[in-house]
C-alpha cells in the first residue's frame, strides 16, 4: 500500500511539473486539419477543448443527506455535498431529473442493471440473459464517434470492477448491462479498464519516442500492413455471415480502425515528450479501494490534461455492487445496506458510503482545478457529471436523481447553483446540452424533450 502511495505521488509531482501546455499548441494545428474552427485563446493561442466525463456511483444515494433544502445560488450544502463543498462555486446540483428507461416498464425486477444500462443511453434495455442484447448508444460514445477523431483515444472507460465476477447478474439481465456504462452501438458495450497501469499504457503506449522518426515510421507501416491483413480476414468472413454474426465482426473491424487511427495520431503526443517522460507508471491495481479509485481518477485527469481524449466514463463500482467499505468501518455490503427497510442505522451507513465516494469526487475536483489551462483551469473547460441512475436504493426509484454537473464547459455554464427541474424532466436533456457544448449539434438524445433549460 505504501508503495502505491509513493508511486502515485511521484506521478502527480510529475504532472504538476511537466505539464505547462496552456493552450496546447499541438492541438491548434490538428483542429485546423479537421476543419474545426480555430478559436482564439485569450492569451493569444487557441481556446482549450471542452471535455466531458461521467462518474457513476452505485446503489442510489441517501437522498435526505443529498438534496439541498433550497434552490438557487444561496443554497446550503447538504451533508454529502459538503464533502466536496470547497468547490461549491464550480458545480451545479441538478434535482428533479428522471431516467425513465431504467424503470421496469413491464419488465419486472432488475433496477440495478437497468439503471446502469440506461444511465448514459436513456434507453430501456431489453431484458435478456444474453441472446439478444439491445440497449441504446450512450452519450459519451455518440460524442466519441463525432469528435473522437481529434484525439489519440476516442474515449476512455474506467472503473474499479471488471465484469464477470458473478455468473448471474441481476434478475434476468445479462452482466453486460450491469458492468457497462458506455455503449458504442445498441449491441456493443464498451468494456472498461480497471488497472491504472494499463490505463496509463493505453494513454501513452505505441508511441515509442526513443526510436528515430524514420524507424518509427517504418515500424508503424508494418503494423499497418498487419492490421490491413486481419481486417481483410474479417471482411472475408463477414460476407458469409448473417446479420447477428456480422455485428460481432463489426466490433472487430471497429477495434482495428481505432488502432489504425491511434497509430496515425501518435505523433500528436510528440509535443508532449516532456509530459510523458516525467510520469511514473502506476504499479497495477492497489488492494485498497480508495487508492484504486484515486489512481484511476489520476489517469482520467491525465488523459484530459494531455488531450489524449476528451471523453471519459468512470464507475465507482458496478451496479448493485455488494462490496463492503472497511476503510470507513462499514462491514455490511453496500447493496445489502441499500435495501435499508427504513432502518436508521442502515441509512446512516449508506450515507457514510455516499460521503466516502463524495470525498473521492472531491479529490478529483481538486486535481482538475489544480491544472491551469488557458486563463482558467482544466475543470473550467470540462463538464463532469457525478451521480446515479437510482435515487433511493430501497425504493429503486429513477426520478429526482442525484446529479452533479461540475465544471463550466469552457465558460458556457454558470455554476454554484442548485437547479430544481420539474420532476420527470429527462436526464437526457442534460446530455443534449452537453453534446451541444462539445460542438455536436444534436437536438435530441434518447428520450430527451430538448436541451436542459437554465444551465447557461
Amino acid at each position, binding site marked *: 500500500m505504501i508503495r502505491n502511495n509513493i508511486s502515485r505521488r511521484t506521478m502527480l509531482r510529475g504532472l504538476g511539473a511537466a505539464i505547462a501546455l496552456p493552450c496546447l499548441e499541438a492541438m491548434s494545428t490538428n483542429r485546423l486539419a479537421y476543419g474545426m474552427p480555430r478559436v482564439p485563446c485569450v492569451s493569444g493561442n487557441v481556446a482549450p477543448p471542452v471535455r466531458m466525463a461521467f462518474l457513476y456511483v452505485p446503489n442510489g444515494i441517501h437522498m435526505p443527506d443529498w438534496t439541498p433544502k433550497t434552490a438557487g445560488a444561496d443554497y446550503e450544502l447538504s451533508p454529502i455535498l459538503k464533502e466536496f463543498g470547497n468547490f461549491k462555486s464550480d458545480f451545479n446540483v441538478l434535482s428533479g431529473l428522471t431516467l425513465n428507461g431504467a424503470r421496469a416498464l413491464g419488465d419486472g425486477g432488475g433496477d440495478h442493471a437497468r439503471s446502469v444500462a440506461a444511465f448514459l443511453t436513456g434507453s430501456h434495455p431489453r431484458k435478456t440473459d444474453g441472446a439478444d442484447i439491445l440497449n441504446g448508444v450512450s452519450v459519451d460514445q455518440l460524442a466519441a464517434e463525432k469528435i473522437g477523431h481529434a484525439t489519440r483515444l476516442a474515449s476512455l472507460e474506467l472503473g474499479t470492477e471488471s465484469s464477470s465476477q458473478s455468473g448471474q447478474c441481476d434478475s434476468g439481465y445479462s452482466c453486460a448491462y450491469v458492468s457497462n456504462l458506455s455503449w458504442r452501438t445498441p449491441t456493443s*458495450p464498451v468494456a472498461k479498464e480497471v488497472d491504472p497501469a494499463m490505463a496509463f499504457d493505453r494513454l501513452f503506449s505505441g508511441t515509442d519516442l526513443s526510436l528515430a522518426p524514420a524507424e518509427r515510421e517504418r515500424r508503424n507501416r*508494418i503494423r499497418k500492413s498487419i492490421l490491413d491483413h486481419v481486417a481483410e480476414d474479417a471482411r472475408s468472413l463477414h460476407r458469409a455471415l448473417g446479420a447477428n454474426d456480422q455485428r460481432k465482426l463489426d466490433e472487430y473491424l471497429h477495434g482495428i480502425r481505432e488502432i489504425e487511427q491511434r497509430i496515425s495520431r501518435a505523433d500528436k503526443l510528440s509535443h508532449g515528450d516532456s509530459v510523458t517522460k516525467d510520469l511514473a507508471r502506476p504499479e497495477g491495481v492497489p488492494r485498497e479501494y480508495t487508492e484504486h479509485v484515486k489512481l484511476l481518477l489520476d489517469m482520467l485527469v491525465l488523459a484530459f490534461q494531455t488531450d489524449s481524449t476528451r471523453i471519459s466514463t468512470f464507475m465507482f463500482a458496478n451496479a448493485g455492487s455488494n462490496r463492503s467499505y472497511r476503510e470507513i468501518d462499514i462491514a455490511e455490503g453496500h447493496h445489502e445496506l441499500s435495501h435499508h427497510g427504513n432502518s436508521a442505522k442502515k441509512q446512516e451507513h449508506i450515507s457514510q458510503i455516499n460521503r466516502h465516494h463524495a470525498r473521492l469526487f472531491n479529490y478529483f475536483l481538486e486535481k482538475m482545478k489544480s491544472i491551469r489551462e488557458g486563463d482558467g483551469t482544466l475543470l473550467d473547460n470540462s463538464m463532469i457529471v457525478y451521480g446515479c441512475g437510482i435515487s433511493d436504493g430501497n425504493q429503486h426509484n429513477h426520478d429526482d436523481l442525484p446529479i452533479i454537473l461540475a465544471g463550466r464547459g469552457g465558460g458556457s455554464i454558470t455554476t454554484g447553483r442548485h437547479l430544481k427541474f420539474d420532476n420527470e424532466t429527462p436526464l437526457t436533456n442534460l446530455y443534449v446540452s452537453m453534446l451541444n457544448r462539445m460542438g455536436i449539434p444534436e437536438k435530441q438524445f434518447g428520450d430527451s424533450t430538448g436541451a436542459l433549460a437554465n444551465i447557461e
Partner: protein
Amino acid sequence: MSRSPTGDSESLATILQEPVRFQDIIDEKSPGGSPVTVPLFRNPQAMLLLLTRAIRRINPTAIWSIAYSIVFLSSAFGQETSGGIEPRVAQILSDKCFNCHGHEEPEAGLDLKHFTSIKAIRDESQIWNKVLRRVTKGSMPPEEAPELNDYERAFLAKWIDGALHDINCTDAAFPGHMTIRRLNRLEYQNSVRDLLLLDYTPAASFPGDDSGYGFDNIGDVLSLPPVLMEKYLDAAEKISRQVIQAPEDLVPAETLLEINQWKLKGGINTNSGSLTFYSQGKAAFTITNDSADDAIVRIKAVGEQAGDEPVKMSVFLDKRKLGQYKLKNHEQYETVDVKLRLPKGSHTIRITFDNDFYNEQAPDKKNRDRNLIVQSVTLVRSAISGVQPSEMHKNFIFVVPKKRAEEEAAANKLLSVWTSRFFRRPNGDNEVDRLLKIFTEARTGGDSFERSMQYALQAILISPKFLYKVERPAPADGTPRDLTSFELATSLSYFLWCTTPDADLLQTALKKDLQDEAVLRAEVKRMLSLSKSDQLVENFAVQWLQLRPLATIQPDPVRFVGVDQPLLSDMRRETELFCREIMRRDQSVLQLLSADFTFVNRRLAEHYGLSNKPKDNETFLRVSLVGTERGGLLTQGSILAVTSNPTRTSPVKRGKWILENLLGEPPPPPLPDVMPLEQQELTGSLREKMEQHRRDPSCAQCHDLMDPLGFALENFDAIGRWRTKDSGIDVNASGKLPSGEVFTGAAELRNVLLEKKKDEFVRCVTEKMMIYALGRGLRYEDQCAVNEITRRLEANDYRFSELIFGIVESPPFRKRQLKLEK
C-alpha cells in the same frame, strides 16, 4: 454421411506431421495427468430401449406443484396438446381477463373463456400470439381493468409462449444457431499456451468477459470492445517476441574489463581508477571466449596533449595490431570503437601508449607532459552469438534457412503449419501467400528473418480466424447442416479442454469423420482421459455454482477472524477437486449432492473442524465425511460463503441459490412496487423478521419456497463453519416446504432433494452444462435434446460420462441451423 474437409487435405496431411515437432508436448508433460478410464456403453441394452421409447417426455406433475415453476421453460415445455390450461393461468385469466373477454359479447369479439386446452390455443395461434404480445407489452389489460402485476404478467406470458411454441421432438432435430463467438480470456490464454508452449499470463489484464446465462463463453454476450483489440495487438507483439528470438530484440552483451585486472608494463599506474600512461607502456587483458564472435573493444580515453602531435594509442589482439588511434581531445573523454573478430579460446587485448613526450622547459606548463588516460575498456559482443536459441524458438522456427535464398521457402513452410494449427483447420486459398507478404515487406525493409516472422505471427494471433470460433453458415433456407469434422473438433476441444485442438484431434478430423458416432465417442473418450479435461469440470463447476465472487467477497474480519483470501481460495479448490473426482471416477452426478467425501488441505480441515487433517496447506486430500454434518456440495464452504452477506448468513440467498443452480427453477425477482413492510422496521431474530416479511402474500409465493431451503443450512455460518448458536440463540434449521416436506438441517434437506427432486436436479445440471457446451442460452427446441440426455443418464446410473456423451452427440452440439431473423 461422408464429409470431406475443405481445402487441400493432402497437403494438410503432410503439414500435420510437422506440428508434432513443436506441439503436443503439453499432453505428455502435463503434471499429474494420470489418465482416467471412462467406461463406455455401460448398458447398451438400456440405450436401445431408450431410443425405442416414446421420445417426448411428459412433464411429471411437479411434486411441489409450485405454480411459478412454469416461469422456467422446462415446465411450459412438454405440455400435452390435449393438456388443460395450467390452473394458475386459468385463475389469472378468469380474474383479470374474463371481465371483458369472457362472456357472450366480448370486447373485440374475443372470448378467451372457450379456450380450455392447449390444443385449442394452438389451433388459434394467431389470436394467442396477439394476446401474448399485448400481455408482454403491457397494453392488456387496459388501465381501467384489474391490474396484472409484474409477476403475473411474466408468468402468463411464459406460459402462453410455451403453449404456443411447444414442439414435437419426433419430427426433426432442432440444432439451433450459434453466434460466431470469440475466445474468452481463459480460452485465449490456454490456446496460446498449447500452441506456443508459452504461459502468457498478461491475458489476465484483458477486460473481464461479460456473462450471460451464468457463463462467460456466450457468443451473443462476448463483445470485442476497442480496449480488448488493443490488448490483443499488444499481446501478439509480446508473445511473438517471447517465442521467436530476433537479433533486434537482443541487447548487445557488454563486458567491462575491470581496470585493476589489467597487467601493466612500463609507465602506467591505476591510482586514479584509470589506466594512466604517464610514459611509454603496455596494458594487457586476457579473456576467454566461448565461441567465435564479432566484437568491439570500446575504449573511453582522453589525451593530455603536449608537443606537436596528438596522443597516439595502439590496440592489439594477441600479437596483431588492430590499429593506431589519435586522441585529439584534451579535456573530454572520447570513445574509440575497435572492431575485431574474436576467435574462440584465450586471447589478450593490449593497449599501448606510443608517443610519450616530456619537455620540462616548455614555457607553457600545460604543454610539458603528454599522457594517455584510459578511463574504461568494454568488450561489446554481438548478442546473437553467445546466445543459444531457446527451446521455444527452436520448436517454433523448425525450419532454419541457411542463406537468404532459402528464406522464403522456409517462411512459407513455417506459416503453412502455423496457420493450420492456429486456425484449427486446413489452410484456405491464398492464406499463406497473404501472410508471406507481411514477411516479405518487413524483410526487404531491413528486418531480420526472425523479426519478419514475428510480424507474420502477430497477424495470425490477431486474425479473427484465430480469435473467433469460425463456422461456415448454415443454409439460408433454415435446413440444419452437420458441422464439418474440423468445426466439430474445435467445438469439442473448447468444450472439453477449454483450449485449441491438439494435433491428434486435428489428425482425426482430417482422416476420419468426427460425425461418425464411433469416431466421436472414441475421440471424446481420449480427450476426457487427458488432464486437460480438468478444465471442463473446474471451469464449468465454478461458473455453474457461481463461485467466482469468492475472489472478491470480504467477510467481516471482526466477526470472522482469520478469514482471508487463501482460505476462500481453498474453499474454491475444494469444490473444484470434488467435482473433478466425480468426473474422473465417472461417478453418478447425484454424488454431487450426496457424496460422503470431500477434499481439504490443513487450513480447510481445521476450519471445518475435521479430525482428518492433511499435513500442510499445499496438499489437498480426499477425506471421508462419514459421521460429520457435511456431505455433497451443499455443505462446502465455497457455496455457503458466496451465498452469505459480509456479516451474516442469508437464508434467502441460499434458498434462491438452490432453486437456481440445483433445481433450475429460478424464482422471479421481487416485485419492486410491493414493499409495504419497508414502512415499518422489522424486528426480532432473522427468522422472525423473515417470517414477518412472508406474511405479505405477494412475497410469500416465492419466500415460502426459498426461505425453508436456506434455513436448513443455518447450522453453517457465513464462512461455512458449523454452529449450533447464532448470536447466542439456538439455531433453528427446520423448514417446511409448501408441498409439505419437513426437514431439519442440511442432511435432511439433502435427502429431500435426492428423493423428491432428483429429476429436477439432473435436468438442471444437464441444462447448465448444455449452455456451457454450446455457448448460448437454451431455447424451447433444445428441450428435445435435454430430455434425451436426462433419459440416457437415468438409464446409465447417472454416470458423468453419459452426460458428456449425451451432449456432444446431441443435434445442438453437432449441427447448425440458420437463425431466422424475427
